[in-house]
Structure formats: C-alpha cells, structure tokens
C-alpha cells in the first residue's frame, strides 16, 4: 500500500500547504489499510472538485503569524484561483458548443450513410450533451484546476458514450 506522504501528492498544492503537515501528523507513520487508502484518494478527488475546500485552502485561515506579507499573499492566492469568465468567454463557449453540435451531427449522418448505423445514432445522440460538455472549459469551468477539468470532462464524455452504446444495444 502506498504511504501517506505519497498519497498526499494527489491533493492540490494549496491544500497540501494548508493541511499537509497536520494531515501527515494525524495519519501517523504506520502502514495504511486499503480502506484508509481509498478514503485518502476520495478526499483528494473531493479537494480538487469542492468549492468549499478550495475556499478553505486559498484564504489564509491559519492563526496570524505576520501582517502585510500574509495579507498580500492571501490576496494573490484568491485572485489567482477566483473563477472568472467574461462575456467573451461565454460567446466562445457558445461557438464551441454550436460547432461541436454540427460536427457530431455531420459525423453521425456520414457514418449512417456509410453503413455504420449504430455509430451514427450514437454520434447524433451525443450532439447536444457532448457539445455542452466540450464547451465547459471555455466558460463554466474556466479557471478551475486542469486536473479537475480533465476528470469531469473525461468522465462525463465516457459516461455519455457508454450510455449511447448501451442505448444502441437495447
């Protein structure tokens, strides 16, 4: 089983800076059980995805140990991790969505014409949900850690494709 220090690397840097030391002190030096490993991995996924956890780790919550330098650091951290998308980002996201929808539809129609009926159905059914998912990094998920984006996008697309394949078998 991997040790706690190795598993700690799964967590975001801000999380490690905030909770890393005390986390390791809590876990201790002993070997981890499978249940503990799964709990820590689950906690890491949560730390990447949860807005609450990001809020707790990006603000300087520790008991004060400095004045202006700590205030400046917390302002810089908050600024860097703040979600921001502009009207332009929304328009780009909409453009990606429309383009991806058309692409899925055209590919689906072409596949059906070539005899790939089931594949064509799947591609056409993915047109809206797939294009919405692909557009998210440009607006809704802008500013999120890339690993979180990869997990959400990859997982969602995989689920959509799996659902489409299952539907075609019924």
């Amino acid at each position: 089983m991997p040790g706690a220090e190795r598993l700690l690397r799964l967590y975001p840097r801000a999380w490690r800076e905030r909770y890393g030391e005390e986390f390791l002190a809590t876990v201790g030096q002993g070997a981890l059980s499978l249940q503990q490993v799964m709990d820590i991995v689950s906690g890491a996924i949560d730390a990447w995805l949860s807005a609450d956890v990001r809020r707790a780790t990006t603000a300087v919550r520790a008991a004060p140990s400095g004045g202006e330098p700590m205030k400046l650091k917390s302002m810089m951290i908050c600024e860097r991790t703040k979600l921001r998308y502009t009207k332009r980002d929304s328009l780009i996201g909409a453009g990606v969505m429309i383009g991806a929808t058309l692409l899925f539809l055209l590919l689906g129609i072409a596949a059906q014409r070539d005899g790939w009926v089931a594949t064509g159905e799947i591609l056409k059914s993915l047109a809206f949900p797939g294009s919405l998912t692909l557009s998210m990094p440009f607006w809704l998920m802008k500013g999120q850690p890339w690993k979180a984006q990869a997990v959400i996008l990859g997982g969602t697309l995989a689920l959509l494709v799996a659902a489409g394949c299952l539907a075609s078998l019924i």
Partner: protein
Amino acid sequence: MATRNRDDLLAGLGRFSEPALYILISLAEGPKHGYAMTQDIESVSGQALGPGTLYGAIARLEARKWIEPLPAEERRRPYRLTTAGQRVLRHRLESMRAVVRVGRARLAEG
C-alpha cells in the same frame, strides 16, 4: 424559518454532514487537533473517521467559520468551535432530541 435554516446549513454538507457533526461535538469539549478528534469521535460514536473524510469535513467547517484553527503545536494544529459553530451544533442537537423523544414514545406505545 430560522430554525429550519440552521438545520439545512449542516445538512448542506452532504456526505460530510455526519462527520462534521461529530467534529463539532468533539470540539464542544475543547480545542483538539485532528488525531485527538478522530480518537474522541471513535470513542463516542464507534465510528473511525478516515483522514480524507476528516479533513474534508474540517475544510468545510472552516469555510463556514464554524471552527477556527489555532496556532500549530509542532506538526499538529488544534481547532476550536466558534460561536457560530456552537449555535449550529446546539440547534442540531435540539432537533435530534425531539426526534429521539418521538421515536422512543412510539416504541413504548408499540
């Protein structure tokens, strides 16, 4: 309506609401660091909180300012319950007491 809002606040933590409740109860006794919390929670509830779950709940409680960190002692950082956290805990325990009272009464009737 204020009563219902405080219940919703704790329930709003989703799968972390129960661990969060245990942490609040543990800290009601006095400030503790993570390891002490897990030991206390296990002795009180029989539940062993994993470190991932523990710190997921701690982060959420901290974000809501229901607990606050104290200066670290070597590698361990104690936390304490804030006034807001006390109010949330008190209300939740009152709600649970009412439910327990009704449950026991019904069992006695049956």
